[in-house]
């Protein structure tokens, strides 16, 4: 944009004929440029001008955080970006905690021949915890208000779950690249993570989300222990047959989640 806004563009803005991205850019400029604000006043009547100032005031005070700006830049709708950016388990403190846990798991991989197992056990648990903390009673301060609002709670849950899954996948993927040993172990946690997360979401339509995550996590640790302790190959659980089982778990979890979506719209168990 040049130093001052073109009059044709100002005129279009005054008539509400500019698209959202253009309007946002114009409002950012108008917030700081008295000359352009004065020019804008020529194009609008008093009432429209007042509404315009309110929108500009909104642009000033409704600042975007780094994550929200990133999501908007990636093409996510303005409102969805705001909903996702408020996710408790996408805060910097949470992501740092996830990174630290992954760091320890990777370090364990260098300690012994079976150290990679630690990473493969820990990595799938991180999205389970993150998704459980993303939306629901006790974890989201505005949960009750959100439930009383017309926006679909199921959609909000999926939006946030997808965002948390993406963030933890990126972090765990980067950590996996640092693991010693065969390359396939860097991604062998992906399907278990998906299966456990969707299983946990499905279970959360029956019991509280945090309780569901705890139950699934406990079940995971017990299963890994039961399978690996007697086995010769400590990574047997992550072989192709195991991956098929985890993929099936993801499919079953998805079906149950969609089937029981009404429970989420009405209010998740607390």
């Amino acid at each position, binding site marked *: 944009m040049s130093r001052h806004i073109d009059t044709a563009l100002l005129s279009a803005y005054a008539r*509400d004929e500019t698209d*959202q991205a253009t*309007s*946002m850019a114009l409002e950012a400029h108008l917030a700081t440029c008295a000359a352009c604000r004065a020019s804008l006043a020529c194009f609008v009547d008093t009432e429209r001008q007042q*509404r315009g100032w*309110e*929108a500009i*005031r*909104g*642009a*000033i*005070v*409704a*600042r975007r*955080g780094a994550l929200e700006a990133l999501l908007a830049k990636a093409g996510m*709708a*303005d*409102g969805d970006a*705001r*909903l996702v950016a*408020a996710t408790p388990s996408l805060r910097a403190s949470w992501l740092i905690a996830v990174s630290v846990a992954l760091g320890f798991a990777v370090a364990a991989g260098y300690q012994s021949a079976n150290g990679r197992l630690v990473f493969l056990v820990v990595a799938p648990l991180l999205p389970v915890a993150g998704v459980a903390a993303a939306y629901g009673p006790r974890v989201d*301060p*505005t949960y*009750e*208000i*959100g*439930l*009383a*609002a*017309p*926006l679909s709670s199921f959609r*909000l849950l999926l939006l946030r779950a997808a965002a948390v899954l993406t963030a933890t996948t990126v972090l765990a993927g980067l950590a996996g690249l640092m693991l010693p040993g065969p390359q396939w172990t860097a991604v062998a946690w992906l399907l278990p993570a998906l299966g456990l997360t969707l299983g946990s979401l499905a279970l959360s339509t029956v019991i509280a989300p945090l309780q569901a995550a705890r139950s699934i996590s406990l079940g995971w640790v017990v299963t890994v222990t039961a399978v690996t302790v007697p086995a010769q190959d400590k990574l047997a659980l992550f072989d192709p047959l195991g991956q098929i089982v985890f993929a099936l778990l993801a499919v079953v979890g998805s079906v149950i989640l969609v089937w029981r979506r*009404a429970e989420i*719209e*009405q*209010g998740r168990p607390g």
Partner: protein
Amino acid sequence: MSGIHGGVQVVGVRKRFGRTCALAGVSLDAYRGVTGLLGPNGAGKTTLLQVLATVMTPDSGWVRLLGYDPADSCDRTEIRRRLGYLPQELRFYPAFTAFEFVDYVAVLKEHTDRRARHREVSRVLDAVGLGTVAGAPIRALSSGMRQRIALAQALLGDPRLLVLDEPTTGLDPEQRLYLRDMILHLGEDRVIVLATHLTEDISALCHHVVVMNAGTITFDGTPEELSGLARGKVWVAASRHPEALRSWRTARGQFRNLGDPPSGAQLADPTIEDGYLSLLSAQVRKAVA
């Protein structure tokens, strides 16, 4: 489906939490104006408001809100489009500013157009007198200001039904007067159901009062009818009367007694508080008997 202009109709609603019976067959009608729910802690007021706000599904009973059935998913969405809800304990994202928080709720309320949404957020913040602190972080605001932010989000979209759980809690007297004035104004063409512990709220705001106790409705009428329950049962004396059901010292150092007055007692005009206490005392006496 009936029209959207109906009020609130609740018939025989029951809700249990384990062994605790929160609502034991509650029936209630509320139309345009302000209906106040009064009752002690644990009476079931919040549970009833949660049912009216569609965030709690009753175990049984019949509910219609603005003519819609909240048990039906499509109707429930229609209700939510016309609903403003202030829960008892609203928590905030502490890093948000007042504007960002209300803007976030506006997104939840399907205000998708950004410019129109920001105008609406500005409007409701101005309505609660917080336009000048819109850009301040919530964690830096007083509890009274936070309560007004909570009310502002409930006003988004000009809702036809307002469900407010203790809206005046945490406000100083001036803010309370401001808020009462606003609620009265809103109640002129909306259905408002609010819960409160303050009998002053009832006398200042409500044309209709409902008293709840132990999950049941024990009174349903006008504020005048509630205070009338204590007519002829309130007297002022220099000392606490041993036969009085309730007796408390007033600011003037006299004792206000509630019960069957002795002969020659100086009877006083009953207040809503007298009527409420008289009702509760009668229930306690009945339960003991």
